[in-house]
Structure formats: C-alpha cells, structure tokens
C-alpha cells in the first residue's frame, strides 16, 4: 500500500504525501570499510521514517549522506524530485533539511536563545552591509525571526533556560535545545540521530511527544535513528533496517518485526 506515488491517510488520521527524498543505490566507503552498500529507499512527505540497526550498521553514515556531510562514491540522491549535484552541507541546510547529531553539536558558549536563533540563519536575507550598519530591514528581520524563535522555545517548553549558556545544561536539555535549533529552520525534512539516546524514561516520553507534535502540527517530515525498539514502533510510519551497511528490511513496524533477517540480525545470528 505504500509504494504508489499518491497520498493516503494513516490509521491515526495523518496525511502522507508523495516521495520527498529518494536514495538510489547509495554506496559509501571509508578506505577499506564499506559503511553503506548499495542501499535504496525513499522518505515520503509527512511521514516519520525510522532507520534502525545494530551498532556500526551505517545508520549515522546514511543520515550524513542525506545531509551532505558525507559524499557517497556511488548512487544518486533526489530531493523534491530533483537530482542532487555535488553539494556542501550548508547548501543542503539551505534547501530545507535540518538535523541533529548523535553526539550533540551545539554552540556551547552561546545562550539557548542564540543557539536557536542560529537555526533561523537560512531565513534571514539582508546582506552583510545592512547587517553591519543595522539598517532598517536588518532590524525588522531580527525582530520577526526572534518572535518565531520564541514560539519554538515555548513549544519545546524551554522558556526557563532561554538565557542560560548551553554548556551549563544537563544532557537531556541539550538534546532538546538541539531539536529546537533544527526546528527553528522550519525544515521540510528533519533528521534526528538518536534523539533519545542516554535519556531516562521520563525524558524519552517527553521527546517522543515532541517528535509526534512536530510532525502533527507543522507537518514536518522526519527521519530518525533510534535504538529503543518500543519507541521506534510507537513513533514511526515506516522503518528501514540496516546491518553491516546493507538494507535487510523496509516496511511498516509490523512488517519489519516479522521479517526473519531482521530477527536474526537483532538476535546476533552468525553472518556467513
């Protein structure tokens, strides 16, 4: 039911549209290590797409290919129907793809507010000279973007720490600030690399709720990597399963759970 191009409605009433991002025969090598080997899959507009797999399977590498941080040796990437040329990560960000990192990459010396404001950079258009001279439009733009950022800060319930330097925050809150910064860009596609890793149960529940709300309220398409199977099954519409750089499963949570290769990979059956 999911391979046609037309949109449809999920059991919980959300609308999933056509293909937003398509990866075709992606292969990525680091010297002798093949991190990704000939993988194809797509991400559809409005869905939550999970990428799962054991440690070292190549999940983060795949996210890095999507966000332009890694350049695959083979394969093609299509975003909104257009084939992507050789791009830099900052250009990918400007196309409307925002991300978080497995090991949190925040601007530690800056306040929460300033961190989230950097997420608006792709939306701020006035040039250097006007910025430098704090000329009319630059000022108006700053105010307008600031208002947008405050809405996101409210949405993620981090008002209390707005002015705190990020370096002083505990791990769980840092993860949330990183999500806020990515959201501030109002991305078409949001990439989350293990958004709940290292969190306690309560923090995980909060984060799950935020991810669902983002998808629901803003209609943001989300691709996320996660180890906690319970979370993955609850959140995602479709799941890609990777193991040793290969795709071993792709489908709804129920389909994937019933897939023998996936079960073997997770039970650690010897590879031959």
């Amino acid at each position, binding site marked *: 039911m999911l391979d046609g191009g037309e949109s449809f409605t999920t059991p919980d009433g959300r609308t999933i549209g056509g293909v937003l991002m398509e990866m075709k025969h992606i292969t990525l090598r680091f010297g002798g290590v093949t991190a990704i080997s000939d993988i194809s899959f797509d991400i559809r507009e409005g869905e939550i797409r999970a990428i799962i797999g054991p440690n070292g399977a190549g999940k983060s590498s795949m996210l890095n290919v999507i*966000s332009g*941080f890694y350049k695959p040796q083979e394969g093609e990437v299509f975003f909104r129907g257009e084939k992507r040329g050789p791009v*830099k*990560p*900052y250009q990918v*960000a*400007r196309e409307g793809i*925002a*991300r978080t*990192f497995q090991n949190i*990459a*925040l*601007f*530690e*010396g*800056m306040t929460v507010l*300033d961190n989230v*404001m*950097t*997420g608006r*950079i*792709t939306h*701020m258009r*006035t040039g*250097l000279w006007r*910025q*430098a001279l*704090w000329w009319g439009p*630059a000022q108006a*733009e*700053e105010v307008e973007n600031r208002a947008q950022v405050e809405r996101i800060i409210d949405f993620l319930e981090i008002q209390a720490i707005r002015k705190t330097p990020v370096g002083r925050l505990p791990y769980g809150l840092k993860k949330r600030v990183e999500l806020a*910064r*990515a959201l501030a*860009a109002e991305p078409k596609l949001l990439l989350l690399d293990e958004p709940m890793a290292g969190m306690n149960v309560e923090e995980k529940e909060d984060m799950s709720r935020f991810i669902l709300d983002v998808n629901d309220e803003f209609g943001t398409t989300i691709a996320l990597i996660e180890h906690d199977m319970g979370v993955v099954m609850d959140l995602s519409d479709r799941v890609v399963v990777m193991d040793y750089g290969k795709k071993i499963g792709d489908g709804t949570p129920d389909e994937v759970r019933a897939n023998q290769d996936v079960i073997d990979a997770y039970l650690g059956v010897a590879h031959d």
Partner: protein
Amino acid sequence: MPDQLLFAIEVTLNGLMAGVLYALVALGFVLIFKASGIFNYSQGVMALFAALTLVGIMEGQVPFAHLINAVFGTELHHFGWHVPALAAIVLTMVVMIALAWAVNRFIFRHLVGQAPIILFMATIGLAYFLEGLGDLMWGSDIKTLDVGLPQGINLWIDETTYEAFGYGFFIDNLDIVATIIAALLVAGLVLFSQYTKQGRALRAVADDHQAALSVGISLNFIWVLVWSLAGFVALVAGIMWGAKSGVQFSLSLIALKALPVLMLGGFTSIPGAIVGGLIIGVGEKLFEFLVGPLVGGATENWFAYVLALIFLVFRPQGLFGEKIIERV
C-alpha cells in the same frame, strides 16, 4: 595635588591610549583565532602592508613600478595624481578584502583539518610573502603617512589642567583621535558579533564547525569575513602607527605588543583583548614611571612580557578564558 600624583595621572592617561591600540591589534588576532583556530603570525605585516598600500594609493604610485621598469625598460613611477585620504582608505580596504579572499582561496582552504602548528607555519610563510609583496609593489623606502589627522599637543587639555592643578598635561591630539577611533571600532565589532546574523554566524563557527554547517553557514564565507575584519583592524592600526612614526618595516612589530595582551586576555576573548590591552598599556607606562628610574629605565621593552609570563604561570587561560579541566 602633589606633583608625583599629577605625573602619574598623566602617565596613566597616555598608557590608556596606547592600550586601546594594543587592544585593537590583539583583536585582529582574536577574530581569526576564534573562527578558525589559526594563530595569524602575519597580523603585524598585514598592518604594514595596509599602510604601504594606503600611502601608495594616496600618492598615486604605480604598483610594481620597479618590476615593470626592469622588465619593459620603462621609467614609470607615478600616475601623477593624488587620491583624497578617505577614498584611498576605501580602496585600501578593497585590497585588504581581496587579500582575505586570496588567503583563503589559495592557502587555508587547502589546509582544512590540519594541525594548528601547520596552520601557524603557513601564516609565517604568509608574513614573509606579504612583506616581500609590499616591497615589490610599493618600494622599500620609508614613507610618511598623512591622512589629515590632527597632531601635536592638545592645548585645551594643557591649559585646563594647568589652571586646575598648576601643571599642564601633555597629551597628543593624534593619541586622542586614535583612542576614539579605536574605541568606536572595538565597540562596533562587539555589537556586530553580538547582535547581527553574521555576527552570530561568526560566533557559531568559532564554537563548532559541524553544527555551523548544519544550520546553513558557509565556513568559507565566514573565514573570508574574519580575515577581512582582521584586514580592516590592521589598516586602522597601520594608519595610527604610520601617522605617528612613518610607514616602515618596524610597523609590523606592533604585533609583538599584541602577544602579551593575548596571554593576559586569552586568545579567544574579545573583552579579554580589550582589558588586556588597557592593562598592558597603563601597566608599562606606570611601571616605567615608578620603577624605571630605579633600574635604569627602558622597562617598556620587557614589562609586558614579564607580566604575561606571570599570568601564564598563575592563570594560563587568561583573564576571561574558562579554566580547562581535562576530561579523564
């Protein structure tokens, strides 16, 4: 008021003014170091190069005249025009921006990810290259720079203080102007980095390259921007120093004064560069005044370094840097 105290106040004032200029030069270092981790050894030579270019443009000198004449057997030296100071400053800034672009395009873009010592070596190379380029373009003779800044003793201050205390303070007009301009520039840079998109992007790049890329910041753009800002700072410093003591090789040595300022203020702190500059400026003048006579003078040559050394021992992260504790 006792004479000693009056002298000390006068010395302190002069020290503050010197300090603002030290702060300015140190700021050039801090900008580049924060954004790219490069300790730019060529900052002083950039000031010399900027001043040479400014004089050359104002005087209507033909760039590379020696080279052209040697190759083509011509006798070119001057275009025969004079460019007004303000226009020449703008043109020089264009040259400094072009230099910033070229430095990134041809050197540092190829050295991304290299160890800091390699980047540092590259800036040493750049320093010698720029020194040679300056000579080749504009000739190696000592030049005077006059952009119309007022010079000489400020009579108003002299008279007012004489009437009030019976002792007239000697304060040079050039120092006053230099202080005001440098202070405005420093304030402008701080506001720019604090409250504008590009300023925020600059701080973001200084903090984390990967994260900066992920929000859509082009590292190359930021690097050209910081090198241009450093070029601008170098130009201003070059004008001040050049107006005072002529444009010649020794101008590039002002960078040496910035080193102790950086050790005091920390290599990554803008407020640190400012306060550090002021402390060194005032400190070395006061020390010379109070202790100099007892040890035979000339303490200004070493005072700043000794102060910096003491700091290195007791507070290696500088005044404003955070203490780094190794994670184990």
